[in-house]
């Protein structure tokens, strides 16, 4: 498993485990008792990307860009307004997650799980580890009693926690350990796809690397596919195979991690990359400081949503919204000027 996994995926045509097409999630803004709708917050607007089986796909952007909402729509924690989410677990027929209801949705969630950002609020403080990690197993009637304990012990061991701790409550654990508990819970049903919503951003830097390594080890061991939501580009560079960059609810660039970091195609990606802290103090001079606020998803600017903050903006950017286009290299970018600009990456 370990030596065939990643290499085999790279050489053959990878299967798309998840194909997201035109995903949108709009929240209505209402006023008064009659709840008259006065505006829409386009938290996620026409998002299209796919995920290959076995890879780690990064979903990056500033806070408020819609990456968490996208992640929650994928799992149907939120119901998307429009779009298709085709999930192909491999062993059964692909399904459109966006259209599933009731029972079918419950069946699907065995294959798709989530790791939460906040290791404190995502674990019920009144439950022991056995209850918490065993919750999905009980809910799906997989095991109970002695068998449940055995399985939970196995899961705890796999995330580096001692099985003897299963009678303890979450308050006895540190943030990093709690996050491991959350990971164990997500893995309880042997999912194929795990959406990790900023799993390390609430952790101390020292624990971050440990947790990231654990995620990487588990991926290899259990041939998992990750969607890794993050605003921390150094983490993304470390763990992701491909990256989707979002801005104001839209995808602005999709590329392999190496390509994206060495030669970004979208000015927003360039600005994000320039904000990554560098060990070399001289390099810090090149930092692009974006002016203005992130575009308001309830009242998006005309044309390209990024134009008010873009140093390269031309008239066309103010007038026409650019489509997400595939370049000759196969990379996707949403910018009128993508072919003309030469943007600075890192390394």
């Amino acid at each position, binding site marked *: 498993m370990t030596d065939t996994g990643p290499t085999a995926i790279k050489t053959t045509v990878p299967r798309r485990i998840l194909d997201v097409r035109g995903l949108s999630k709009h929240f209505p803004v209402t006023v008064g008792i009659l709840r008259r709708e006065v505006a829409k917050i386009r938290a996620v607007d026409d998002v299209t990307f796919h995920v290959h089986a076995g890879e780690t796909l990064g979903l990056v952007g500033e806070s408020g860009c819609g990456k968490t909402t996208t992640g929650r729509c994928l*799992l149907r924690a939120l119901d998307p307004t429009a779009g298709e989410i085709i999930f192909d677990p491999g062993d059964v027929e692909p399904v459109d997650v966006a259209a599933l209801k009731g029972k079918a949705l419950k069946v699907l*969630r065995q294959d798709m799980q989530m790791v939460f*950002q906040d290791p404190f609020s*995502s674990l019920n*403080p*009144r439950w022991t580890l056995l209850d918490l990690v065993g919750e999905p197993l009980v809910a799906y009637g997989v095991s109970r009693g002695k068998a449940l304990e055995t399985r939970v012990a196995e899961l705890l061991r796999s995330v*580096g926690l*001692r099985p003897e701790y299963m009678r303890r409550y979450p*308050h006895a*654990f540190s943030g990093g350990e709690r996050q491991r508990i959350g990971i164990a819970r997500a893995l309880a049903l042997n999912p194929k796809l795990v959406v990790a919503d900023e799993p390390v951003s609430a952790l101390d830097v020292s624990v971050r690397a440990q947790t990231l390594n654990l995620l990487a080890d588990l991926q290899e061991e259990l041939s998992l596919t990750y969607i890794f939501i993050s605003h921390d580009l150094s983490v993304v560079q470390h763990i992701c195979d491909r990256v989707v960059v979002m801005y104001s609810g839209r995808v602005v660039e999709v590329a392999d991690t190496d390509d994206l970091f060495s030669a970004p195609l979208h000015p927003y990606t360039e600005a994000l990359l320039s904000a990554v802290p560098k060990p070399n103090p001289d390099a810090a001079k090149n930092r692009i400081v974006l002016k203005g606020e992130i575009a308001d998803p309830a009242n998006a600017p005309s044309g390209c949503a990024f134009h008010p903050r873009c140093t390269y903006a031309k008239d066309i950017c103010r007038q026409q919204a650019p489509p997400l286009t595939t370049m000759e290299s196969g990379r996707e970018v949403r910018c009128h000027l993508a072919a003309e600009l030469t943007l600075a990456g890192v390394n």
Partner: protein
Amino acid sequence: MSDKTAAVPTDSVTPGPERLALQKRVDLSVASPSYLMWLKFRRHRLAVASAVVVIMLYVIAAFAEFIAPHDPEKQNALNAYQSPTQIHFFDNSGQFHLRPFVFGTTSVRNPDTFELEFADDTTVRHPIRLLVRGDPYKMWGVFQSDIHLFGVADPDAKFFLLGSDKQGRDLFSRIVYGTRISMSIGLVGVLLSFVIGIIIGGISGYFGGVVDIVLQRVIEFVRSMPTIPLWLGLAAALPSDWSIMQIYFSITIILSLIGWTGLAQVVRGRALALREEDFIMAARLSGTSQTRIILRHMVPSFMSHIIAALTLAVPEMIIAETALSFLGLGLRFPAISWGVLLQEAQNLRSVALAPWLLAPGGMVVISVLALNFFGDGLRDAADPYRN
């Protein structure tokens, strides 16, 4: 993998329980939520003391017949307006007796006013004994008995711990009996408002949207009404020929008609806060059913808050009942509650002549303070995971 475990510090805990752990060296990592709550509650000394007082009050309420030394309805014109009987340890020769006693009394007619006046007859001692035979009673209306917790054996001895009223009835015994109605009317009323509050607050918080807005406005409207005139109006509408029980339950309903609003708001607030918790979403994504989420996740996390809110609502009910009865619109004679007893202290003459008639007011103060401190302690302990 297991090697990694050793590297991870496992005894680091969140600040709240950690500080508790320092006080008491127990294994908190396996401490259940209720144990953590107990640890936190125990640190609130005033609340612990109040809890003892509250428990005592309810014990008194439960065993009123046994604890009261006299029949509360036993009238005797000769005993009218007796001042509280003094309890002595030393007799007239200055000798100490371990068992406390009261002196006998002699009555003397005042030659000027022709009123009967009482004086201690120091030659007669009536020792106070535990478990003495006295007025017969029916415990909870079932068990016939005449054994009282304490009292004096001689039925003619005057033994009025808190004095007597106009009809010569023992005020202490009447307060003990009043505890039963006054303390229970708070509980029953709160339970009723709890049912209304949890349903309406739950609907408001769970559905949100228009339902929430409308219900919140209704609650604000109800709260804006001046309570005393409303109670007066409702209480005045009760037929005067109703039995004590009917009046009692009508009064609790009237009190809870307003009381539910505060509880509804607590329930709604908790429901809204819980909806945002990640662990609820995690449970949903884990395939846990809606019923199980409500029963196993939501109810345990807000039950402690509800209990605290309920405890804080009880004293409001007690005060409301006392106020209504004092004004003569709540419970009426022959029911005995602290409010009814205070009614007898309404006129200036009796207050001037017999200030001990105000004692039921002292009981109201004690019970309300104790319940409030107890509720405060519960509220602080309700969420042991936050500091």
